[in-house]
Each structure stands twice: as C-alpha cells, then as structure tokens.
C-alpha cells in the first residue's frame, strides 16, 4: 500500500521533560518519527516542552512548539496549525495520555484531526488493566488472576481466586507505599486493610503472585496489511518483581526453547491484533513459570517505549522510524532495511551477539529512600553493551556504568548477605559476585534470588577465570588465560588489579601477545547479507570488520549513561557536533554506550561504536580509526575525565586544551589565575583531611559550601553552617584524599546566581547567554529555574560579567564552548566556577537565541572555521523571554524530603516562552507539571527574615483573589498589616494542622521558606503532603514572587498564546546552513 494522500500535516506530541520512567529514549524515537515523516513530504508540527531534545531543533520539524504539554496549550496549537492527523505513539505515556484527552474533550473532532498509528479504543484496551484482561481472556491468553477491590469484602473475594502469596498494591500512593505480599490470610487482612486506608481513592489491586517467574518482553510491529513481525525478544535477568526498567535485560531471550519462544510469539501476534493496534510498534510483556512453563501476559504498551528503543539499538531495526512510515500507510515490505539496503523491513531481525542493558540508579542522592528494587521504577539511566557472549556483554556493560567503587563486603554476615540477595537492590552485582566467590552454590543463590541458573553459571565462569589470574604475576598469566579474560570482557584495569600491575602494563603485555580487540557490525541479519552501515562493537575474535576509511575524521566521545547532573543536554551537544562536522565533510565517529540517546542512532554519525567510555575502550577505537581529532568537551564529565590520559597517550584532543581544562578544574591554579585577572572569587580553600577542612572553614568563616572536586551535578555537595556539621560531612559523606581533595568555598547567602555560556577562540569571544537564576545561590544551578535575558541585573553588573567572561576565555585559551557560574552579592560580582566545555544549558541557550552554538563550537574546534567567520554579535540576543525550569523525581522515592539544596536532584527540564516574564515562567511551571492555581487558599509560612517580603506577596495574592492562611508567626504579621488571614497549626502544634488541610485538598498554593535547622520536621511533613497531593509549593521568596507573577499574568491574559520556534526566530538567518557547508 502506498502512503496516504489524504493527510498532509501531522502533529507529533513529544514526551516532555526527562523523568524517571520516561527518559531520552523518546527523543530518539520522536526525532526518528519527525525525520521519517518529513522525508515522506509531510508537514510536521511538533510540540514538546523539553528544550534539551534533538527533536525540538528547528530543522527536525516544520513547526516546533516548545510549549507545555497540557490540554489547553496543545488545543491552541491544533487550532492554530490545523493538522490533518495526530501521531500519538512516539511521545511516551505523556504523548499517549494527552492524545486520548484531546480526543475525549472533542478537540480532535472539532478540528478534524485523525489519529494515526493507534485509535482511542485500542489505546484504552492496551492501557486499562480490566479491559486488557478481558480482551486476553477472549482470545485465550492467560493473564495474572486478580482484580481491584474498594472494600475489605471485595478484597477477600478476590484473594479466594488468586490464592497465596497474593500481591496487594494500593492505588495512587507515593512510591507504592502501603502495599506488600501476603503469604497467609492474617497477613492479607492486615496489608489489604492498610492498603485501602493508604489509597486516597480507597482502591487496591489484589493479584496472584508471579514473583520469581521469568520475565520476557517481545517487540512487535504491525502494518495496515496486517503483517506482523517480532523485532526482538528480551529476557530479564531479574525475575518478576523488579520493574523492567530496573532490571538487567538481555536480548535475545536466552533460556527459552523454540517451542516456548514461538508460543510467546503467537500470543504477541494475537494480542496486537486483538487490541487492535493498526500500525506501529508495541511492547508486550510476559511472565513464564520456571517450574512448568505456564505463561501469563503482563501488559502491552500500544506505542514505542523504552524497550522498543533498546530493541532498535539491539538489532539495528529502527522501530520508531518504521512505525512512523507504517502510520502513513506504507506496509513493511515496501520499506527497505537501512542496513542491508537490499532486503525489506518485513522480516524478523536475527542477531549474532548478545545485548545487555544495565540500569543506573541514583540512590546516593536520595538519603532516606530505601535501596530496594520493586515494581516502581527508580533508575535514572541505563547502559547497553554488545558482546559475542553474555559474559562479554554483561561485563562490558558493568564497566560502562562508571560505577564509583565496588562495595566492600568482606566479613559480611551470612544472614545479611542472604537478605541482600533475596531483596533486589542497586548493588546486587556486588552481592552476587561476592556470594559466588565465597562458596555459595548456584542452586543456593538461585533459591534466594530466583535468577535463572544459566545466568548465574555465566557469572560463575567469570569468577572462576578471575581466580586463575588473581595474585599471579602479570607475566606468569598464560596467554590463553589472558585471551580468555579479554573474551569475558575483564578490563585491563581489572586484570591489573588482580595481577598487582598497572593498566598500562596490562595493555602492553596484551599487545605483546597479540591479544587485541576486533570490531563486528550490527547488521540485523546475522551476517546473512552485507552490512552497509558501520554500527560496531568490540570483541576478542579473529576478523575485524571496522574497515576504517582514509577520510578526514573526528571522533566524539559521548556522555555514557544518563544520571542526575549528566543527562540529555550533553547528548544533544554530541549530536550537534556530529551533525555540523558531517555537514563540513568530516567523517564523524560517535562513541557511546547509552541506548536511549539520539547519539547512538546509527543514522546520527557516519560511524557508531557502541562501546564503554573507558580509557581502554576509547584507545582501542582511536588506534583502529586514527581520527584527526577527538572531542571530549561535549559529553559532560565522563569523557572529560579521560582527557588527560588520552592526551598523554598522544590522542589529538581538539578544542580547549587538556591543560586549560585542568587549569579551570584545579582549584589552586584557578584561584591564582583569578587573582592575576583581578576577578573576585568567594574565599576558598582545598582540603585533603578533616583537620585541614576545619582550619580552612574557620579562616573563611561559616557558612561554607563543601564538595568533592571533579564531579557533576553537585554530588555530595553541601552547605555547612558549623564545625560539627563540617566534621560529620568530612567523616561520612566523602573520602578526602590527596587525589580527591574537598573544595571549600565561602557560601554567599542570598546572592543572585548567574550562568553564562560563551563561544570563544583566538579570534574572540561571543557571549551566548547570561541567565539569571530565579532561586538564590545555594540551590544547585541545575535545580534552579533561570531566565534569559536576565531580568533584574544592573547594567554595570552585566558589563562586569561580559568583561570577566571575555578575559577568562582569553586566559584559558578557550576554543569552543565555555560556561561560567557567577554570583552577585552586595553589589559585587564573584566568579564561582568556569568550565571550558559544553554545559547543561547549551541546548536551552541555543533554542532561546536561535543560534546553534554547539555546532559552531564544533566547527571552531575542528579548525574548519574561526569564530570571526560567523559574524556573530559580541552578545547574542533573544527575541522573547525564555525560562528554563527543572523537574524532580521525589515522588518515586518514598521517605525522602523533597527539599532543594546544593546537590542536584532534578532529572529533566522544560522551557517556557513568553512576551513577559510572567507568561514565560507560567508556561515553564505548567510544562513542569505544576497547575497554576487561580484561586483558593494560599498557605504562607516563612522565616523571620522573609516576613517583610511575605507581606508584599500576601497583598498581591489577596488582590488576585486568594484567601490567606498561615501558621501563627506569619499570620500574626499579616494580620498586623491589615490582611485577612486564617491561622493554622503547625504539624507539631496539634490537629487539624496544615498537613491535614493539605490532605483534605483545602490548600491551593504553599509558600514555605526554611525556618532554619530546628523546624525541619514540620517543613518535611508539609512538603511531603504537598508532593503527594500535587499542591504547588515554593520554598524561596524569589520563586514565590515569580510564581505569583505568572498567576497574575495568566489571570489577565485569558487565551493562551503559542509560538513556534520558527516564528520566534523568523528573522534570524539560518547560520549553519549558510556558513557551515
């Protein structure tokens, strides 16, 4: 069937900010879909609130709206753009839910918009557990027994059917609290009743337990001609009970016979037909009983998903791209396979390697959250690794994680080890390998973990091999054993540790013995057909398929797994480097191990090496490819940490030199430089011991900011007010050592923070953006909202900032991008830090200015152009007001205080655009999921120094029609100035208190600034209830002021205004298009 001709303009809804469970895999799939549809000649309208995505680059769609993903805004976009169709399946759960809402509210009908790819009925069957179960019953596919109960009586009836153990899950509780597994009627009664009480809608799900069953996923595609193919099967290393996003997963399935696999395949095909997904991809999950092969279908996602992104990367079959083409009428047999060129997409990929995905968690950032993995996803990122054996892919994956340090388990008591094995947690590999090394049998570990013995055997084999190397002299390790170790993906570093030698010695020894990696291609077909796409992975075998060219080439090191502080923004920069350099006729080589990203799409660069970002792996690729230049400054801290060693090994690092990077990172050198340039810096020092830290803090005076050097995202960063806390921090939070010193800075209280991004080379410096933070200094810059252009900066400060930026760029000999963090306190501008590399704010600044600064930087770095060639003004302008706001994952971590501080916690960001600050800030808030309250009760509780400001804000709220409610002290102050204000108990003063009010839905806005260290308990209770009941909460006066401004604007504005990036930047010439080629 040829493509549809009845539609011309297609709307795509993206997935919004990066959150746990919805990461940048939807940028990858959305970008593919936009490109595929544009290539087919459709006009593509995109809406996504996330500015850090590639999909929101103005050249990806025809009209790009970086606007909140709300019914109101998207309706306005539909009204303005009048698309013929909406593709709802590439924007994750967010895109799907919003599409259904648009349909149900009649917006799609009103403007004649057709849904393509999936219809509302099939989306509902796929999403609604009851409808799905019923549909599966009708076609004889068994699903887990159980159902929803609203009363104890109902629950008791359901448990008769499910038997024991039974799983109880209360609906809508924070982090799934209040649920559990009942092994007998007594336990069931207890858990069910408390679950019903915990659920705000008094609903629990009671299900038969299939904990410990094997878990599988199949990725299915269907076209309009009813052709159905399976793209990939995935087996979870962790059995049922751990969310698939938190499981180690392996492709293809490892322990199913063909008979059993075909059964799942048949069920998947029957399921997609029954649910009625007309075209595109779906993900179907199954549980298989390891005792007898019984199957339960768990769920299906009638859209592209995290797993489909993984399956695409695992097989080389681009699911989202093909899904987009199927949605506009093509059939699978009409679409060619990109990789073989000669064969069609109507086939099932077969792979001749093993793919392992390993999640990355951030429990260390959420003290108070229990490190236990369950049905609620908690990981913030993932790595994927490819190897010819499971052992190889697993151990490549483990080293891709950049794990800080392994747990020291020596001497752990058996009962504790067993408990840790039985309750999955983020350190399970440490426990598993420790148990294997210490005499636990595979049977015993299987009994505790339910992990398939086959997987455990693979681990065992690696442990046994390690034991053969452990303690030997490197030169005494037989060549065959060393070869074997490399086949099992033991790193040179690991071998050096085992043989008490250095990594360089291992590398040298290996080369002497001719033990070197080769590269194989991912080709969708197990080598049956020739591959035309250099998508490569390393292994230790005979034949090398890398086949390097003799073109001019630049290698870009990616940013590895997403984590808090190092996310999609850096992938954006890496992609931009690749796009620009490709256009400038370089061969671009991407190295990365993150399956969620656009950078690991085989289409992004000329060559893709899906490899860990370690010195060993990168050097191997450098030696194979011999690139003219390597870019380490775009992928965040991961590649930057390799810069020095790569440089010393003779690798041509382009752009700002590793020495300059070190100059900026090394506190002592940097301080000297600032002094020389006469630039003020907060008093500071570097400590390598608790004693030294105390001495420094006493000298510069409390409060101080303390943090380890060489980290991103403010890991283990804290503001310390006294010596006792400092001592505690030094002893518990960090291991200070001469290699890892602790930085101590004077904390500038109530200072305004500024972020500057700039481009520079020897021909000059261009200031791309001076962003003003909404929240004051002390809250991590990644967790603070910021605005472009700066709203409140005095002209002379602006000049000072420009002056400092230019001078620093020159002094550091920056070639490419540079980021500065500054603070203004008491009319004085301080430089806090300088990073001569791409920063988290590059995509935001690029979208706000309409100038692709990462592309320009990469061309400068490659020496293709000078900055002067681009004829940019000394400072870029922005045609509107742009606000960037963070999005937080606190809801996923029960027990954690959702308070902001110097350690970063946000997972993603949104952008709001407007003519006024109020409009832009309001949109940013809405984009971040905060519904601006228009009326109701505003609760105010602030510390003494904020009370004056509180009066001003309260007056404004009063004028806007809000009722005021406050705790005693604040209420008294407001009443004194003549405002009507209700008084409410603090949490520890009695009941009903403010937390009760929040739970009853009485409060529509909370302004609560920290009252100092003493009343922490009260504030925590307020913040936690506010989080649970979705009440907008601000914890700074500046934030409160901005929010009230946004409310006021929205009240006066009426109809929401939407503007595409293309309109906003209409008069800006397409710089790269003209200059870059």
């Amino acid at each position: 069937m040829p493509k549809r001709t009845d539609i011309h303009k297609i709307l795509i809804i993206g997935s919004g900010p990066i959150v746990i469970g919805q990461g940048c895999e939807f940028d990858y799939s959305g970008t593919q879909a936009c490109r595929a549809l544009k290539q087919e000649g459709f006009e593509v309208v995109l809406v996504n609130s996330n500015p850090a995505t590639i999909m929101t680059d103005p050249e990806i769609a025809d009209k790009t709206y970086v606007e909140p993903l709300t019914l109101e805004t998207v309706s306005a976009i539909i009204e303005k753009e009048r698309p013929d169709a909406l593709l709802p399946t590439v924007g994750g759960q967010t895109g799907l839910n919003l599409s259904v809402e648009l349909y149900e509210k009649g917006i799609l009908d009103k403007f004649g918009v057709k849904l393509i790819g999936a219809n509302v009925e099939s989306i509902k069957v796929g999403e609604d557990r009851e409808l799905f179960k019923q549909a599966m019953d009708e076609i004889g596919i068994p699903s887990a027994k159980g159902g929803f109960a609203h009363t104890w009586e109902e629950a008791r009836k359901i448990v008769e059917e499910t038997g024991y153990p039974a799983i109880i899950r209360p609906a809508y509780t924070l982090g799934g609290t209040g649920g559990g597994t009942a092994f007998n009627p007594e336990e069931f009664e207890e858990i069910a009743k408390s679950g019903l009480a915990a659920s705000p809608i008094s609903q629990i799900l009671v299900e038969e337990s299939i904990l410990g069953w094997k878990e599988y996923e199949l990725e299915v595609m269907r076209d309009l001609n009813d052709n159905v193919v399976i793209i990939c099967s995935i087996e979870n290393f962790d059995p049922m009970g751990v969310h698939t996003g938190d499981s180690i997963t392996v492709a293809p399935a490892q322990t199913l016979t063909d008979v059993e696999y075909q059964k799942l395949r048949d069920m998947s095909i029957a399921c997609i037909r029954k649910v009625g997904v007309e075209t595109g991809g779906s993900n179907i999950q199954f549980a298989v009983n390891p005792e007898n092969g019984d199957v339960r279908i768990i769920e299906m996602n009638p859209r592209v998903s995290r797993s489909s992104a993984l399956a695409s990367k695992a097989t080389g079959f681009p699911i989202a791209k093909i899904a987009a083409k199927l949605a506009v009428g093509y059939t699978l047999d009409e679409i060619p396979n990109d990789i073989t060129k000669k064969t069609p997409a109507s086939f099932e990929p077969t792979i001749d390697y093993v793919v392992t995905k390993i999640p990355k968690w951030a429990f260390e950032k959420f003290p108070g959250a229990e490190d236990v993995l369950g049905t609620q996803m908690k990981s913030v990122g993932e790595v994927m690794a490819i190897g010819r054996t499971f052992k190889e892919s697993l151990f490549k994956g483990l080293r891709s994680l950049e794990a800080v340090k392994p747990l020291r388990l020596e001497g752990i008591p058996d009962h504790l080890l067993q408990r840790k094995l039985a309750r999955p947690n983020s350190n399970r590999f440490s426990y598993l390998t420790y148990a294997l090394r210490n005499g636990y049998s595979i049977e015993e570990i299987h009994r505790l973990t339910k992990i398939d013995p086959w997987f455990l055997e693979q681990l065992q084999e690696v442990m046994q091999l390690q034991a053969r190397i452990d303690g030997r002299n490197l030169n005494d390790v037989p060549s065959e054993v060393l070869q074997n170790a490399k086949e099992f993906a033991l790193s040179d570093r690991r071998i050096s540790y085992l043989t008490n030698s250095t990594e360089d010695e291992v590398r040298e020894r290996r080369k002497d013995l001719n033990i070197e990696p080769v590269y194989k291609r991912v080709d969708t077909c197990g080598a049956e057909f020739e591959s035309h796409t250099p998508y490569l992975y390393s292994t230790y075998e005979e034949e090398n398929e890398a086949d390097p060219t003799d073109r001019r080439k630049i290698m870009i090191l990616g940013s590895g797994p997403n984590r808090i502080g190092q996310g999609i923004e850096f992938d954006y920069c890496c992609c931009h480097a690749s796009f620009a350099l490709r256009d400038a006729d370089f061969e671009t080589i991407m190295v990365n191990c993150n399956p969620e990203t656009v950078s690991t799409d085989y289409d992004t660069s000329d060559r893709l090496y899906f490899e860990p970002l370690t010195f060993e792996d990168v050097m191997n690729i450098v030696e194979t490819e011999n690139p003219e230049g390597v870019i380490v400054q775009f992928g965040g801290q991961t590649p930057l940490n390799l810069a020095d060693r790569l440089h010393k090994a003779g690798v041509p690092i382009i752009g700002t030199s590793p020495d300059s990077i070190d100059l900026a990172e090394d506190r002592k050198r940097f301080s000297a430089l600032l002094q020389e340039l006469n630039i003020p810096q907060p008093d500071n020092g570097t400590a390598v011991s608790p004693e030294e830290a105390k001495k420094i803090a006493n000298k510069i005076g409390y409060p101080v900011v303390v943090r380890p050097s060489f980290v991103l995202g403010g890991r283990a960063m804290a503001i310390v007010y006294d010596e006792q806390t400092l001592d505690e921090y030094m002893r518990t939070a960090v291991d200070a050592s001469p290699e890892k010193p602790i930085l101590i800075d004077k904390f500038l209280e109530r200072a305004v923070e500024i972020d500057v991004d700039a481009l520079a080379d020897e021909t000059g410096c261009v200031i791309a953006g001076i962003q003003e933070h909404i929240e004051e200094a002390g809250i991590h810059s990644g967790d603070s909202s910021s605005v472009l252009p700066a709203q409140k900066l005095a002209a002379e400060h602006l000049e000072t900032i420009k002056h400092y930026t230019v001078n620093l760029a020159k002094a550091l000999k920056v070639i490419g991008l540079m980021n500065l963090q500054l603070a203004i306190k008491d009319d004085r501008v301080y430089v806090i830090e300088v990073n001569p590399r791409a920063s988290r704010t590059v995509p935001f600044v690029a979208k706000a200015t309409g100038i692709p600064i990462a592309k320009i930087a990469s061309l400068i770095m490659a020496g293709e152009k000078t900055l002067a060639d681009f004829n940019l003004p000394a400072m870029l302008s922005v045609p509107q007001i742009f606000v960037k706001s963070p999005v937080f994952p606190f809801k996923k971590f029960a027990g954690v205080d959702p308070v902001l501080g110097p350690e970063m916690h946000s997972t993603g960001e949104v952008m709001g655009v407007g003519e006024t600050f109020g409009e832009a800030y309001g949109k940013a808030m809405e984009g971040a999921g905060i519904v601006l309250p228009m009326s109701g009760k505003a609760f105010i509780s602030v510390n003494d120094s904020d009370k004056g400001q509180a009066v001003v804000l309260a007056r404004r709220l009063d004028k806007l029609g809000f009722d005021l409610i406050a705790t005693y002290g604040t209420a008294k102050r407001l009443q004194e100035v003549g405002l009507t204000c209700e008084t409410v108990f603090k949490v520890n003063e009695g009941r009903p208190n403010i937390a009760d009010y929040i739970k009853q839905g009485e409060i529509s806005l909370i302004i609560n600034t920290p009252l100092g260290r003493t009343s922490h308990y009260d504030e925590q209770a307020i913040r936690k209830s506010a989080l649970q009941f979705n009440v907008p909460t601000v914890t700074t006066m500046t934030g409160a002021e901005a929010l009230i401004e946004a409310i006021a604007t929205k009240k006066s504005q009426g109809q929401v205004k939407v503007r595409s990036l293309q309109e906003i930047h209409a008069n800006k010439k397409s710089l790269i298009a003209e200059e870059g080629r």
Partner: protein
Amino acid sequence: MNLSKKAILVLEDGRTFRGDSFGAEGETFGEMVFNTSMTGYQEILTDPSYAGQLVCMTYPLIGNYGVNEEDTESRRPWVEGFVVREASRVASNWRSTESLDSYLKRHKIVGIERIDTRALVRHIRDKGAMRAAISSIDADEKSLLEKVLATPAMQNRELASAVTIDKTFDYPAEREEKFHVVCFDFGVKTNSLREFAKHGCKITVVPAETSAKEVLALKPDGIFLSNGPGDPASMQKVVSEIRKLTENAVPMFGICLGHQILGQVFGGETYKLKFGHRGGNQPIMDLTTGKVEITSHNHGFAVEAKSLPAEIEVTHVNLNDQTVAGLRHKNLPIFSVQYHPESAPGPHDSEYLFRRFIELMEKGK
C-alpha cells in the same frame, strides 16, 4: 575451567579456524552451511535435511536450554558436524533432560566451539557453501584439507535414500480421522506429521523410492512430498514416479525438497543457491493475498522460475532475493512451497498451508 581439547575446522578453499572440541571427538566431513535461527538447535540437529552438512549457528550461544525428549524432529540427529561460538556448560530449562554436549557425544556428532563463527559465516556468504571438515584428532590443516578435497560435493549428491525410513508406517490422526495422507519420506520432520494429525489426517509414511502404483494402492486422499537433503536434480527416478501420480489428480502438497521435485515433475529446473536459506526469519510474500509471512527455511537449491511451464503459477516469492518460494498447478490440485510450514523451529505464520491442503482434499472427496 579445564583446558579444553582443541579442534580444527578446514574449508575446501583452505580457510582454517582453530577452536575447542565439543560433543564427540573425531573427524567429520560435509558441506559447510549456516543457520540464522536464534532458537531451535535441537530441531535443527534432528532435521534430516541437514544430512551431509556441517551446520554453523550464527547465534553465538547454543545449548543454554539443553536438550529434551519432545523437541526432536526425527529419530536421531543428522548433521555431520556442529559449529558454535560458545556451547553452554549448563542446561537450564524445566523440560531439559540432557546437556547439548552430552547429547552430541551420545550420538557421536563432532562439534567445534570458540571459533569466530561470524567470520566463518561471512566467508560462506561471500564464497558460497563449500566442503569442510571438523577434526579433534588431526590438527594438521594440510592433511585435513586433502581429506576434504576427497569428499563428494553437494551438487548431484543424492541423500534422501540415506535418511528415509526402511518400512512404511502409519501416524494416527488426533481425534476423528477425516483424511488419509501418504507422505513420501525424503527426510520428513515429525512436526509435519503432527500438523497433519492435528488436522484430522492419518498419515502413511512411505520410503522415498516407493512407486506410484504402491502409493495409489493405499488409496490416499492426498499425497505429501516432504523435505529432505541432497541435490533434487539427482532424484530423477523419484521425479518420474511422482509424475505418474500427478496424472491421477490426487491433491498433492510438496515442501522444500518435495517442492523442488514437483518443480521438476512439471518440467522445471533446479539450481544450487550460493549459500542457501537457513533460518527462521525469511520474508515470503503470498502473491495470492499480498501478505507477508515470516517463515522457516532450510534449503540450498531452488526452482528456476524461468524454466517453469505456463500451467505452473508462482504463488510465493522470497522478498530477500526474489527466488521462487511457492508454486501451484493451474489445473490440478497440486501446490508446493520451498519453505517449512511445519516450522519446528521457526514461526507458525505458514500453518495455513496445511489448511489449504485440507481444503483441496475436501474438494476431492
């Protein structure tokens, strides 16, 4: 981990791979081919169509789920040798009764592991399927190469008679018996019989060289020509017997070798493919419906489309290389496919072909 015994694989063009021995020790010869199925090694090992061949699995990890008593496709494994990247040390599956290694040892199948199987597959893909040897007793590649060159090539090799049964036997229908099908055993897989039985057919399995007269004496409602090994061009005697049967208008269904025989019966020619189709992911278009089915393949020869007479219609094509994948006689109740509707291993998309055959028999009754 003990140091494994070494083994060597030598191809007739001299390319040599050194790895570890697994399965039985010894020396074995055959045509080197590869299969791209990720599951189903037990079915592949026991598929008689692999007689005369050394099979390399493109999926690197083989043996993970062991071997069980149900998933065998014939009375014993037929591959001459087995080549894998890594043979699993353990078997993990609730139905498993034995490890792959022990199964191969028991059936004296020589295997080699820990070689760069992808390099081997790429070599075969580029140079074509060729004769080869695996040995764990002769480590000298020159002497092994000489032995390889002394073995027969697959072209013109007749192998069905080596795998067919000696004596006719009946395979009962499940539940009610509606039809009687005579199956020529050129190397039939048990799952074909299971499929017929499931559709209410009693099957009488007869040796490959059974005469037309003997078959007609059984009064079949339909005749099934099975898959099997070897060069179809070498089977002219069988072709002429089948030709006699077509004169009787008994519904006839051929698969794989059976399809190639039918092609010759109607005057078509067969030819050897460079490296064949072996795997479970081959896209076939049913030209009568325009739909694509994902199919299981195992063949090194194909029917030449141009050689076919006007009364034969090409009903199915392989979308990967446009080769003939299905035929139908325009006037007689006879059709055939180049692939394996009985799957085992592989997807079940083509099961409808059995129903098509049942419909033909219904019409014929």
